[in-house]
């Protein structure tokens, strides 16, 4: 029996306009089981697929179909994969990296946007999409005029729907908070999960750093900012539950390092950690951690923790994409956290180092760290 992929190639040889119809139907890239076919239409000397899957060659070559201007590239993508990519088109010796013109699905990030391919079985979670039934929380600015950095810092605070000063709330401090709102739909996710009773109404402080590669790299100054500047200010401004089990830190990439190192700086102050694709570089011997110099202080911090693991919090939700290079570091951290007596839930997803991956982990992570009254409340 001829496969759908081979049949498509044959059909395209005789009728290249099939591509346009498939694009109009938003079916590109095409999936046939775990076989995914990327398509490009246009004159070119060479077309390459540049994806962000660590473990595969960064580029895959498109092949021209017959004498047409249609190019195809076939990849095997395991179930529930989600892949971000661009297409590199070379024409007359000039190369250009573009988003897939035949695929409207995009994922934005601070550097722009990538095209997105959903493998078989992957669906955008419903709880990440704005629900008009969900009451919205509000974002309020908060300025800390004097900080350990010697300069003001601006924080945005998510106040849950129906916020009341007479009630007490759990607290979550999020590193790179504005990016989480902008690129991972964090506000929508919070509104939805609170509406669905999967997490309790909570105060979420969204922090930013103007020098994140320095401050988030396990810097003691940042940890003091969290513990000595931000936390007391939030306690004075908001009715917060005092128990560590109602206080958490969250971050992704270097933000996860910042969250973990701040927790280490103030053991037991934060009972909940949500660490996504943490940049937990380390070396087993010597100083070569295999990454850029920006990771040097991170590796010193992680190496120190590996030498003497200690309990710094109650629960850690740790997650990483299997298509990112940091999977090794995150897998390595798991047994250390467990051996130190922390309760850890670890999740891997077939995704890369990106905001959509981190968005997709939020429901399980938040609901496990801060369980809502789902079973008992029927409004």
């Amino acid at each position, binding site marked *: 029996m001829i496969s759908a992929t081979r049949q498509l190639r044959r059909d395209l040889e005789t009728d290249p306009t099939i591509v346009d119809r498939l694009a109009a139907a938003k079916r590109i890239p095409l999936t046939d089981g775990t076989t995914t076919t990327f398509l490009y239409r246009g004159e070119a000397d060479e077309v390459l697929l540049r994806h962000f899957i660590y473990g595969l060659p960064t580029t895959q070559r498109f092949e021209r179909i017959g004498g047409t201007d249609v190019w195809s590239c076939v990849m095997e993508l395991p179930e529930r994969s989600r892949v971000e990519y661009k297409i590199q088109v070379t024409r007359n010796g000039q190369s250009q990296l573009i988003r897939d013109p035949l695929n409207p699905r995009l994922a934005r990030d601070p550097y722009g946007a990538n095209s997105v391919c959903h493998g078989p079985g992957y669906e955008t979670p419903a709880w990440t999409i704005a629900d008009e039934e969900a009451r919205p929380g509000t974002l309020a600015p908060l300025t800390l005029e004097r900080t350990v950095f010697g300069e003001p810092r601006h924080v945005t605070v998510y106040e849950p729907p129906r916020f009341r000063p007479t009630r007490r709330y759990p607290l979550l401090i999020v590193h790179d908070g504005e990016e989480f709102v902008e690129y991972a739909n964090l506000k929508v996710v919070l509104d939805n999960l609170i509406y669905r009773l999967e997490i309790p109404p909570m105060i979420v402080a969204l922090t930013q750093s103007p020098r994140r590669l320095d401050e988030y790299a396990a810097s003691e100054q940042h940890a003091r900012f969290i513990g000595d500047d931000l936390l007391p200010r939030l306690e004075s401004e908001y009715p917060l539950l005092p128990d560590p089990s109602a206080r958490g830190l969250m971050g992704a990439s270097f933000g996860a390092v910042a969250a973990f190192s701040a927790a280490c700086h103030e053991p037991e102050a934060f009972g909940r950690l949500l660490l996504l694709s943490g940049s937990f570089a380390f070396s087993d011997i010597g100083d070569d951690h295999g990454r850029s110099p920006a990771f040097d202080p991170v590796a010193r911090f992680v190496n120190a923790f590996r030498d003497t693991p200690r309990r710094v919090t109650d629960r850690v939700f740790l997650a990483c994409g299997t298509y990112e290079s940091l999977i090794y570091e995150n897998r390595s951290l798991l047994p250390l956290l467990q051996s130190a007596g922390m309760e850890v839930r670890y999740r891997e997803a077939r995704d890369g180092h990106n905001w959509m991956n981190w968005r997709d982990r939020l429901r399980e992570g938040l609901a496990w760290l801060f369980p809502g009254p789902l079973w008992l*409340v*029927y409004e």
Partner: protein
Amino acid sequence: MDPMPPIVLLGPQRLRPMLREAAEAIGGPARIAAITGGWEERELEDDELTQHFDGPVVNLRLHHRLETMLADDPELMRHLHRRQDRLQRRRDLYHIRLAHALDAARELLRLPGTHRDLEAAREDAIRTVHAIDDHHVERVQDLDRAFKEDFDVGARPALAYHRQELAEMLGACDAIAIAGGHVGRLLEQLRLFDLGAALGARPVIAWSAGAMALGRRVVLFHDAPPQGPGDAEVHDVGLARYDGFLPLPHARHRLRLDDPVRVGLFARRFAEVRCVAMDEGARLLVTEDGLQHATGCRWLQPDGTVVDTPATSGAPA
């Protein structure tokens, strides 16, 4: 014996309120007692609620009364906390037994075929779940009896005062409206303030958790929680103000109504009652003659299907 006053059970009221129609269905009461204790600290934010009724609405403030009373009576608070801890321990044990029994039942229901041996195994598995539910209910009731014998809450002066005041307030009302919210807290308030008799003597409108609390058993449910397999559980006995129905508010969000195995298992597990999906727009009118009117409801069937109720009246056979 006086006839049983009518009771109207409703789905969630936030997006499509039906309180005015419900009030008309029970004769348009002049003065209504409102119970919003399931909303906990938001109990008194009942402006929206009162706008749906023509006459005055008196909020019984059960949450506030309980909080104040416990703050003033540490001994009573300790007693209630002890009871809650014991209940929770029993629930934890129930969950362990239930999880295995439901796993087995679901696995058997998912097997293809309908041959006699398989059907018998399925029946046995569901009977086992049923027995675990029954056993849990007995244990909860045993515990209640033991705590009542051990500690006479009715003798606490503050509680006696509140009960008396509530009886007087209810005496001046023609009907009672019970809102949704936290069903555990609501049940505790209704029991502690001894409102069972008052609820049996007046027309009642109840929605979501309010409707659940008035049934014979309170069943908690969610087919797709962020953690765990989503095993529905019998939480407690209810006030048994009506019988024959198990209202399932927010069913379209909380239940996988397109999964015949889960729907069928749910309906067969609670076969002694009709399992009623009650979303926005759902209404049941029950009198002493049984169900008088159902609209916007869906019944979960033992064969795994979900049947819309005709908008006019009556239940399917």
